């Protein structure tokens, strides 16, 4: 049943697969982001309370959701790497981490730019904001830890372990708005009920979320290819590949 899964453990196969997928994914990501953002910026009505400032939602929510989605992807890769000793999974942990760090930074910065006009402050030490900041530090920790060992394999293993331990932060971020009194509003779409947002605003938002997801996949393909080349540089297939050019 999982026969198709086995070739994916072979670096050479993954390298070529990612190379084929990358241009399509990148094109789709940019097209979706342009569609979702232009729709959200110019073709949706303003919010009845927040006016036009609410349009920040079209990047704040996608980047925030995908900062957590990217972390899950990284943690799953780390788990596969540690349990089944799959090298490609090991390398993808380090390929994904910088993407997640950038998404988290975007979520924090856009949140600050939204908080200033609506809450009257750029930053408060409130549960949602603090736990999201910890997510950024977890990403940076994974990146730093992998580079802190002279042996690349040991560093990657330590980083994977940190990535798995950090999963505890994900439910804390998600439920922070329910568990603690916070300035941050509750969930509007990631809940088991009808989204509390008008369809005219929901559609461009969903498209932008999809755009951030596809962009994450595209960047993972690109960065994983580099990681495979670096780690397999002494193998014959990489030498043959480099000789072709």
């Amino acid at each position, binding site marked *: 049943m999982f026969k198709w899964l086995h070739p994916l453990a072979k670096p050479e196969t993954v390298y070529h697969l990612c190379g084929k997928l990358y241009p399509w994914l990148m094109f789709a990501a940019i097209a979706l982001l342009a569609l979702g953002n232009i729709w959200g910026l*110019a073709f*949706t009505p303003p919010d009845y309370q927040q*006016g036009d*400032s609410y349009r*920040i939602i079209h*990047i704040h929510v996608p980047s925030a959701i995908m900062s957590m989605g990217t972390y899950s992807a990284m943690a799953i890769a780390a788990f596969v790497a540690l349990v089944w000793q799959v090298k490609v999974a090991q390398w993808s942990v380090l390929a994904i981490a910088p993407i997640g760090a950038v998404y988290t930074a975007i979520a924090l910065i*856009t949140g600050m730019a939204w908080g200033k006009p609506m809450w009257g402050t750029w930053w408060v030490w409130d549960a949602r904001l603090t736990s999201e900041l910890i997510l950024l530090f977890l990403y940076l920790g994974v990146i730093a830890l992998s580079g802190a060992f002279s042996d690349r394999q040991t560093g990657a293993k330590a980083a994977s372990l940190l990535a798995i331990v950090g999963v505890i932060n994900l439910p804390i971020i998600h439920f922070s708005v329910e568990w603690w009194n916070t300035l941050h509003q509750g969930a509007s779409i990631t809940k088991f009920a009808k989204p509390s947002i008008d369809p005219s605003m929901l559609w461009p938002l969903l498209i932008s979320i999809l755009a951030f997801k596809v*962009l994450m996949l595209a960047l993972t393909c690109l960065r994983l290819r580099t990681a495979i*080349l670096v780690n397999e540089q002494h193998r014959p297939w990489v*030498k043959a590949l480099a000789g072709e050019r």
Partner: protein
Amino acid sequence: MYFQSLAEFWAMGGYALFVWLSFGTTYALLAALIGYSHYQQRQFKQQLAKRLAREQRVKQYQEQSS
């Protein structure tokens, strides 16, 4: 379009600073990440090609001198 004019669009109902700050930073960060990832790959491929060429030269030299 929900705005009457382009000027009104840029003004964002008085929230221009915050809206364009957000979108500007987002696109700048994403572009930097995409650009840097491409740069890393190009850089490594060049480095690899150089190393393989040097190995080739060393091999040729050794064959000649033996």
